[in-house]
């Protein structure tokens, strides 16, 4: 009975935290958007309002700010997201989740690829017998960490489109060369970051008592490392909570160049067109996803390293 009560209180506290977070982030985003003379739609370059009184935009502009604040919040919570100003046929409730699922797929695959690649690079940089190769790998890690998307994305796009013009012509985001190029592109900075973290951790870990013990017991290096996999992943686990939200909103530029209909490209298109409902909903999804993934990362960290002692 006591355990059930404890669980209920715990879940209740999580929901309360989530709700407070939702209200505060909504308020900040709402008022930032309205900082531009009361409404982000006051730009004369936005679009011609031929029938201003009949249009949905005019209806939003004319409402007083407090009523607009409450109504929009209510609509957001009850999934009554309405439509875009430029497309009144497709409802955003169906349109945005599609984009979100593409973003999530890219994020999850990118995290897996980054973790595997970084482990591979860091292990070579530490355990390879040839010194020149170890130094080369360290230089390579620093080099890929210095490659921003703003440079590497156009370069890769130009190079690949030269040898594979179909990447420009295709409208599908799941076209394999396009998909895998994007994944590698997005995972590069995170691979460098994770590899650096594992490398720093492993530099001290060569004197590990446990590793020495396992090696002395006759296990091979790979078997010993497999036994210590949780310890190996421990330095990354605390950064995954930061990396996943950054990934969710951080590859807007790559989405823009490779024409991927994910959340970032929709968001930037909406910002350029002052499409108020989309801006609000995408920003809210970004901020809520940060809360959710930070919590999940803490949970993951606790599972990997129980000494952390953080509960969900």
């Amino acid at each position, binding site marked *: 009975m006591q355990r059930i009560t404890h669980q209920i209180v715990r879940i209740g506290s999580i929901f309360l935290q989530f709700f407070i*977070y939702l209200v*505060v*982030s909504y308020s*900040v*985003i709402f008022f*930032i*958007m309205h*900082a*531009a*003379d009361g409404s*982000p739609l*006051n*730009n004369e370059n936005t679009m011609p309002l031929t029938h201003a009184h009949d249009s949905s935009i005019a209806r939003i502009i004319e409402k007083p700010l407090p009523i607009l604040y409450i109504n929009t919040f209510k609509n957001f919570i009850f999934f009554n997201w309405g439509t875009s100003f430029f497309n009144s046929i497709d409802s955003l409730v169906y349109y945005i989740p599609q984009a979100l699922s593409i973003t999530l797929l890219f994020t999850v695959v990118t995290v897996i690829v980054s973790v595997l690649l970084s482990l591979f690079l860091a292990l070579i940089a530490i355990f390879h017998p040839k010194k020149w190769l170890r130094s080369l790998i360290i230089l390579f890690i*620093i*080099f890929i*960490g*210095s*490659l*921003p*998307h*703003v*440079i590497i994305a*156009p*370069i890769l796009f*130009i190079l690949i489109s*030269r040898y594979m013009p179909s990447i420009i012509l295709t409208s599908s985001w799941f076209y394999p060369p396009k998909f895998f190029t994007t994944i590698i592109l997005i995972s590069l900075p995170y691979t460098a970051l994770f590899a650096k973290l594992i490398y720093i951790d492993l530099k001290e870990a060569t004197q590990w008592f446990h590793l020495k013990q396992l090696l002395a017991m006759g296990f091979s290096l790979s078997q010993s490392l497999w036994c210590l996999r949780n310890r190996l992943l421990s330095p990354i686990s605390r950064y995954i909570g930061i990396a996943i*939200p950054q990934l969710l*909103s951080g590859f*807007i*530029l790559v989405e*823009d160049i490779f024409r991927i209909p994910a959340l970032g490209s929709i*968001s*930037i298109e909406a*910002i*350029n067109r002052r499409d108020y409902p989309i*801006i609000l909903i*995408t*920003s809210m999804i*970004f*901020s809520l996803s*940060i809360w959710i993934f930070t919590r999940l990362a803490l949970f993951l960290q606790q599972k990997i390293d129980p000494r952390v002692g953080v509960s969900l």
Partner: protein
Amino acid sequence: MKKKQYYLLLMIISIFMTGTIYLSSRMPNHIQKYTPFQSPQIRKLPILGSDALGRDYMPRLQTAIVTSLKISFFSLTCTFILSLALAISVSHMPTVISQSILYLLRILFIIPSILLASSLLQSTKLRHLTMIITLILALLYPLVHMMHALLESQKKESYWLVSKSLGGSHWLFTKKHQFPYLLWHSIPIAFSRFPRLLVLESTLSFLGIGIQEPSISLGLLLQQSLPYAQSHSYLFYIPAFSFISLLFLLQWLGLYIPALMKQVTE
């Protein structure tokens, strides 16, 4: 690395910076007599070639580097001062208030930079100011959070406990303990974030939300050269190479600043 080598390195960097600023006084938007799309050449001007309007590419590149560095460095300095002030004030406040301030800063941090930049641009119409505020808000929370954690760990030190038991004032604690401790520990961490600010500034300019013509920054230069990247590749690869070198240099400097500071104390 020896002390002399550090001084030599610092001298090279300062010469590079001052030289760039001096040379960038040439008008970057001035349309000269050069034919459009003149390739880079060593013997005569334009050394780095000319763009579609026949403008020399060299002063444009220099101005772009200087603008990006100026904006990022100014934002970094402002953020550092703001974070110092916030972290020290928060440490003297009751826990509820300090946690609320940190919570609000966190909310500001998680708002997508693009939304923030576009809304600020709409209200202020000043691109440089918008960019600086966006960069400040992107870095403020991580720095304040880190400084707050540092100050909390300092409270467990024996000298802090002794001072506390002797009944020192808040001002004395700030002046004698917190300020030097924070400065010493946070300068290398803050500087290591400098390349990130540079990348964020360039990305926003590349997406058309940051710096715009007639000013020029690295991101804008890359964006402008993108349509000619296949036909006149030097227009893209020269700023790209400069950008990568700059980032590499800054990352390297960021790695060696702690070692340099350690040597200074010794």
